[in-house]
């Protein structure tokens, strides 16, 4: 009964779909009529092949498990253009965040680059660490050599503050 994805022989799982819905709190985030405006403007489409409209449809059909296990949900840059411009007030962004949370709960493999960014934030409070660059004249410079001020990072252990805030929530 119901749908089968003949490419992978996957079947929709209603249970997983319900779990996404429970995380979303509003069913409106999945109210997509496939105009593909989100994908037309998606920051992560050109390089990373993220298609927000496809995620909306797959979740609606119930093909959730494959998505949760995939790398694609980790490519979203959370620029929120899709949320801002969706004519149906759906939100691929919220759906993607829900799927990511499910992936963590299921202890699915999270792409290394993403984890690196996360531990960077936990350690320093910065999404990106100051880097050394090489110029066209093959000169290496960093902030010090350019006499730029040091970047302020949270003084106290950011990790502690962060986890405390999380707990309070």
């Amino acid at each position, binding site marked *: 009964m119901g749908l089968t994805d003949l490419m992978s022989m996957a079947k929709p799982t209603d249970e997983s779909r319900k779990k996404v819905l429970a995380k979303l709190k509003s069913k409106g985030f999945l109210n997509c*009529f496939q105009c*593909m405006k989100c994908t037309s403007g998606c920051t992560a489409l050109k390089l990373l092949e993220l*298609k927000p409209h496809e995620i909306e449809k797959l979740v609606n059909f119930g093909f959730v498990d494959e998505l949760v296990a995939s790398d694609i949900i980790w490519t979203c840059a959370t620029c929120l253009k899709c949320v801002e*411009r969706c004519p149906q007030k759906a939100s691929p962004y919220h759906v993607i965040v829900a799927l990511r949370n499910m992936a963590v709960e299921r202890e699915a493999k999270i792409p290394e680059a993403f984890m690196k960014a996360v531990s960077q934030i936990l350690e320093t409070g910065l999404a990106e660490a100051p880097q050394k660059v090489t110029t066209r004249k093959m000169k290496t410079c960093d902030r010090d050599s350019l006499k730029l001020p040091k970047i302020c990072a949270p003084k106290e252990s950011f990790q502690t503050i962060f986890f405390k805030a999380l707990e309070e929530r």
Partner: protein
Amino acid sequence: MPKIGVYVCHCGLNIAGVVDVEKVTEYARQLPNVAVARHYAYMCSDPGQRMIQEDVKKRKLDRVVIATCSPRMHEETFRKAVAEAGLNPYLLEIVNLREHVSWAHTHEPEKATEKAMALVRMGVARAKLLEPLEKRKVKAEKSVLVVGGGIAGIQASLDLADAGFKVYLVEKAPSIGGRMAQLDKTFPTLDCSACILTPKMVDVAKHPNVTLLTNSEVTGVKGFVGNYEVTVIKNPRYVDEAKCVGCELCVKVCPVKVPDLFNEKLGQTRAVCIYSSHAVPKVAIINPNSCLRLKTKNKDVCGKCIQACDAKAIDFDQQPETISLKVGGVVVAVGSEVFDASKMPEFGYGRFKNVISNIEFERISDASGPTSGKILSPETGKPPKALAFIQCVGSRDKRFHEYCCRVGCMVALKQAILAREKIGEDVSIYVCYIDLRSFGKGYEEFYNRARDLDIEFVAGVPSEIHRASDGTLYFDVFEKGTNKLLEMRADLVVLANGLIPSNDVARVNELFHASRSADGFLLEAHPKLRPLESSTAGIFLAGACQGPKDIPDTVAQASGAAAKAVDLLSSGEIELEPLKAVVDEDLCSGCRVCESVCPFVGVEMKPEVVEGKEQLRAEIVEAMCQGCGVCCSACPTGAIKMRHFTDEQVLAQVVAACTEAEAKGGS
């Protein structure tokens, strides 16, 4: 003792599929005063009605309770049926077992049956106390006010005038013609809009039964169905309509240039101008906000038009004129507006000159427009090499208007075909759409015709439009058919701006008490069965003020509304429902609460001398009262009663609802 007949309808399986109709009938049979109880598959059918009529005649029933669908659906049908059998039609009680029971409690048949029995019990309790009522007749004016002179108003006026009615056609703009006058060609036949509209404009202006009031607005409405008193303000043109011959000599000498509203501000006209090339009436008008003399209020300023006018038609002393009209009914045809796409910053409308709206495209494509019918980009002044249409702008969009604009797809097809015909093979034409809706007669064939003309359909819409330094527009669009992200470059982008309710709709709502639906348009009395009437008696709806519409639908609705007005007023008399409020003078304290709550201006306060002292007394204007019952429930002394919904009748229902035993007790 009353003799009551109870009839339970199955409504096919609509009711019987959930409610145990036999059990309900059985239950009704043993209620006090019930002489007969029956159930039948379709009570509204001929055999169903005959069954009731025979019972009324043979068993001498004096009250009838029918447990069936909503009274909004068939109360009139059953009233007629019992009246034919010789019973006063108001001795009928409808119990709603469909909308209130079976449809609401589909999954709980047992509880639904219990509720159905309770409702029947209540119906029987009320039926006992019903009183016979008579309809009253009042005189009606055989004249109609038509508000709005677009194609809807013109069509309604012509039909009414041909039927022998006096018609007052009021138009806010200096010329009739409305939105349709701005269009180049019309879908799906591509006949020229002006060719089919202009003759009608002339006909309506010349018709002996039509009084045409342009540059005018309705400012006040009093009275009631059949007897409306309407105030119209005719704003000054500063040109004598009787003298002006439309030669445009004044326009040539006028030094003040102003944006041309008829051309969607794509061109310029003068402070004195003729509204459009096929304006009716073809009479000049002076814009008081731009004319140097009117702006400065100085009689020595300018005056070039006065010197130029051979007919001596210029008259700077004109004042607004107040006109009072007596009409029996009103056809509201105030039309709609076009969505302002600058509210959607991502598409750049208003920032980029070569992003235009579909109505602007019409003016560019029209022979009487600013480019004399050549399709030129407002940015370069040259014909576009690549032309892109973007659909569903402002409509099907929950941030703005949720509904489908119903014309955008067909307008884009038409404009794409026109562009192909006018510019030729050199232009690439793309239509970026979400769903392409070609639902009308001949519309799908029109879509085929567009595909035959090498118009490319792109399933997907852009997220944002950018402008390159050379003025070219470019955007990315993810296309469903190819599953590819495509970059598109175009030198002209046309946005399919939807139709939205105009500000006039709010004004109509205030003046005529015509309700609005959630989308902001005017609300019809019933979406399927009474689409041509508003909820206020005698106010009819035509065209896009009731919802976005194309020309065929607008004309059909306008003719329908006119026919409805003829039907209402042709006998010169109107039957009024007797379900009105009545005041018990002895109890009325003159507190005016009823007057303040009445939404229909149906209460008048009359002074009366009681024991030497003057006191106010409420009086119901029967023709105005719509029987809503607000005054009755607000009256602090209980002086106002609603006929057919008296306190006794309603309380009997309440008692029956609460206590089964008491209802059985009879008296």
